């Protein structure tokens, strides 16, 4: 049982981390609470389904294509919808909710409400320490780790990363130093949604694809991000693992209450917030006066 918890929690935590890190990034840089974040994850899953199952493209072509298409689309959405509203924080918020609803309804009209399945990229199972894990899940873990390491390298080893981090630190000063903060924000949107679409593509073959699939990870993701501290990448990563493990432990310790795992995870978040209102790794930033 112990090894089950260890491995299940790790795999689930990996997927959550992909979502949470992207969300945290865009919040840190542009102060956008992007409710549509997981809706992009859903779009990526549908896009992957369309390319792989309907157009019968090879996996190695369909997956990158889906990620690129959704990322490009997100930049377009940002330019057309979010950028004109940037001064009005509350308007940005419901604009992202409206976008998410539009995506959901568009997919419902295009693909119907059926649950769709995507064939596994890798078939078969591995048995690790007595725990059965399908290869697909190991793939998820590997891809998640690679994407996260890639993001980390990008943030800490490139000039763009430096620009993103400094904009997140202080938008006004970054602007005064001659950085094009709009460009930086746009690049961050692309990276953030890129991570979400990678998650959508690798997860789609394990989960069920349907127009409402963005709602439940949304809540989990928000809980993780708040738990870890808004805008903190390290916090999101650790928060994701905590929630992944809490969910796994709930299922094993309380089998009849498996449906409560979401509520338990949220309660953990509330408890952490009570003790540390800025989350585990959040920085207390002075509210702008």
């Amino acid at each position, binding site marked *: *049982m112990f090894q*089950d918890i260890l491995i299940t929690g790790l795999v689930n935590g990996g997927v959550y981390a992909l979502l949470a890190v992207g969300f945290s990034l865009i919040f840190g840089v542009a102060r956008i609470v992007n409710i549509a974040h997981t809706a992009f994850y859903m779009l990526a899953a549908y896009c992957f389904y369309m390319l792989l199952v309907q157009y019968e493209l090879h996996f190695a072509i369909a997956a990158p294509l889906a990620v690129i298409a959704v990322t490009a689309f997100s930049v377009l959405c940002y330019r057309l919808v979010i950028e004109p509203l940037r001064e009005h924080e509350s308007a940005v918020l419901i604009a992202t909710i409206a976008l998410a609803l539009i995506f959901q309804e568009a997919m419902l009209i295009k693909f119907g409400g059926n649950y769709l399945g995507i*064939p*596994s990229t890798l078939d078969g*199972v591995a048995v690790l320490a007595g725990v*059965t894990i*399908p290869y697909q899940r190991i793939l998820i873990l590997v891809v998640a780790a690679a994407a996260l390491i890639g993001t980390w390298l990008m943030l800490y080893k490139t000039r763009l990363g430096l620009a993103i981090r400094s904009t997140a630190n202080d938008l006004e000063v970054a602007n005064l130093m001659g950085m094009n903060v709009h460009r930086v924000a746009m690049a961050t949107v692309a990276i953030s949604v890129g991570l979400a679409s990678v998650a959508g593509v690798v997860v789609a073959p394990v*989960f*069920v694809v349907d127009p409402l699939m963005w709602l439940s990870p949304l809540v989990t993701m928000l809980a993780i991000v708040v738990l870890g501290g808004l805008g903190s990448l390290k916090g999101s990563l650790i928060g994701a693992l905590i929630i992944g493990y809490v969910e796994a432990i709930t299922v094993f310790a309380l089998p009849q209450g498996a449906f409560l795992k979401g509520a338990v995870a949220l309660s953990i978040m509330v408890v952490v917030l009570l003790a540390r209102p800025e989350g585990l790794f959040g920085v207390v930033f002075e509210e702008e006066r």
Partner: protein
Amino acid sequence: MKMDVVGLWQPSPNATDVTAELSAIDRAGADIVFTLLSGPVGVVVGRQMGERNMKAIAFGINVEAQKDAFWQATAGKANYVATIDTFADVEMTPKTIPFQKAFKARYKKSPIYTAGTYDALHIIKDAIEKAGSTESEKLVPVIEKMSHVGTAGTLEFDKRHDPVWGPGKSTGIAVQWQNGEQVPFWPPNVKGMKPFKMPGK
């Protein structure tokens, strides 16, 4: 034959992942997973059980597995998943197969339990004609005595106004997914039934 209940797991109907539950079930050494599932979790359970090559068999009710789209939704992983269903290409009554054909021709998919409304409407129509009234007080005694040969079975009602359940009356049909086909296997002695299959290992 003696059976033990090794555990009870209640995933959320919207769960997208039941890995933790399934590993716990594996650990508990279950042979049969008696499913009571409605909602997308039915697809997830079917698929993930297949992917894990679980030795336990899913048997019970899984609304998603009644639908034609189940095989596609599970990406063909849900072999041997069994569920109770309402319609199939078997002669439960002489009306079953014609109804099944007509339904498919019109809606381009097989009927699931919701199509049972067809029989219900016919019962109420017959009752209204017989009683010559639409008042519930007059309809109840008529329906109490009625024996209606419907599309899914022969419907009669007991003292508590529940349908009488059992072979020859109304039972539902047990079906199993076998290589992309929904195969009916129960109740026995009905024309068109095929054998139940066990995972071959």
